[in-house]
């Protein structure tokens, strides 16, 4: 039978696991989002040099399991002088792995902005900075929010793998509770519920952001050299 008191007795383990999962996921996703942006920007800025290496990196992330990447970092790292603690290896692994996916998402976003918009903006003398911040980013933001939310959710779920390199995350602590109490269903279901909660929060956040971006009115761009005249 379902015995809820087990969960109360082992609450400290569960909370510790939750905390570790949350901060490692947060930092890992942050790393993935920023590194992905850097990769996409490099590719956009100088396609001739960076297209091929970035495309290779993306293929690597798509083709290699995260577990292998974590093992390479945690067990393989010391042989080239890179000794990481398990949690840091987790953050770096999630970050490197996610970056490949985010680079593709951003690239899709940048590519979706019609070329005509950029040409028209340049013709009107709008500065490159304004082209980026007022034309490219607002248009791509709306498009990349849903796939980014999706990817963040995937990363949170994949973060369960860090338990295999001995990080005390939700999954590892749930297994410890199973081994201590010989109850299988309660700890695993409770932890599944907590993962689901984190994921639901991300999904809701993404949805809210998407709606906000869709409703946003564009602000007028002030022409270079002041606002003295406005023809047409």
């Amino acid at each position, binding site marked *: 039978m379902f015995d809820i008191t087990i969960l109360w007795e082992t609450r400290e383990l569960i909370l510790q696991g939750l905390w570790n999962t949350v901060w490692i996921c947060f930092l890992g996703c942050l790393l993935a989002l920023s590194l992905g942006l850097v990769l996409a920007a490099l590719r956009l800025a100088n396609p001739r040099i960076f297209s091929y290496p970035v495309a290779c990196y993306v293929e690597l992330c*798509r*083709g*290699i399991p995260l*577990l*292998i990447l974590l*093992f390479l970092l945690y067990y393989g790292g010391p042989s080239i002088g890179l000794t990481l603690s398990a949690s840091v290896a987790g953050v770096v692994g999630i970050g490197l792995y996610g970056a490949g996916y985010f680079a593709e998402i951003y690239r899709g976003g940048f590519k979706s902005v019609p070329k005509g918009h950029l040409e028209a903006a340049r013709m009107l003398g709008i500065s490159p900075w304004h082209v980026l911040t007022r034309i490219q980013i607002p248009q791509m933001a709306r498009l990349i929010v849903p796939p980014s939310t999706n990817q963040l959710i995937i990363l949170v779920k994949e973060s369960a793998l860090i338990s295999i390199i001995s990080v005390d995350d939700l999954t590892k602590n749930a297994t410890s509770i199973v081994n201590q109490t010989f109850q299988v269903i309660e700890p695993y279901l409770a*932890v*599944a519920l907590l993962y689901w909660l984190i994921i639901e929060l991300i999904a809701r956040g993404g949805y809210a952001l998407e709606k906000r971006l869709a409703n946003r009115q564009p602000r007028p761009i002030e022409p270079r050299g002041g606002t003295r005249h406005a023809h047409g």
Partner: protein
Amino acid sequence: MFEILLNHYPALAEGLTTTLVVSLSAIALGLVLGVLMAFGLMSRHRLLAWPCGLYRSFWRGTPILLQLLLVYYLLPEVGIEIAPIYAAILTLTLNTAAFQSEIFRSGISHIPVGQIEAARMAGISTWQIRKRIIMPQVFRLTLPPLTNEIITILKNSSLISVIAVTELMRVSEQIASRTFQPLETYLAAALLYLAVNLVLARVSAYLERRMVGGLATE
């Protein structure tokens, strides 16, 4: 890295075979379940649609590692003793069925309603419509996401090493602990996973190019 590949070729090949067998059986079984569940999800009967939706939410919303551990530890509790490899196939199947049901649901919803209405007018039965009109087109429409799902399952199959199935990941762990060369060993394993997934992606791209001709449009 290449030394490891050469010296431990038989063990790695055996591991890779197990990886492929487990992943592909899960994909095939999950496909059957996924198609059935896609029709369940789209059913007008709430008693059918609701449990399918709940199933999809659970299997898509929790980590696959957790699902694997739950299945693996739960089966003996309820008196079912099966080898780890079957527990692994079962978990991957149940997981991919949820993802595939969503892929097929979205594919089915892209088929013009007019075709189905016309078929119904012509007196073709529901199952015949599904078999002859909907599914052939759905497979063409859903080939790209389906390929992604196959690759995901292949990658996720690496974590069944946790329940002691000797697939590629587990074999690499054994080699790493024997040779004390974890970096080279895991790089070799990564190369094998990468090769399989690249081949899969290429085959799928080829099929997609070939099949695009026969697609019905509005």
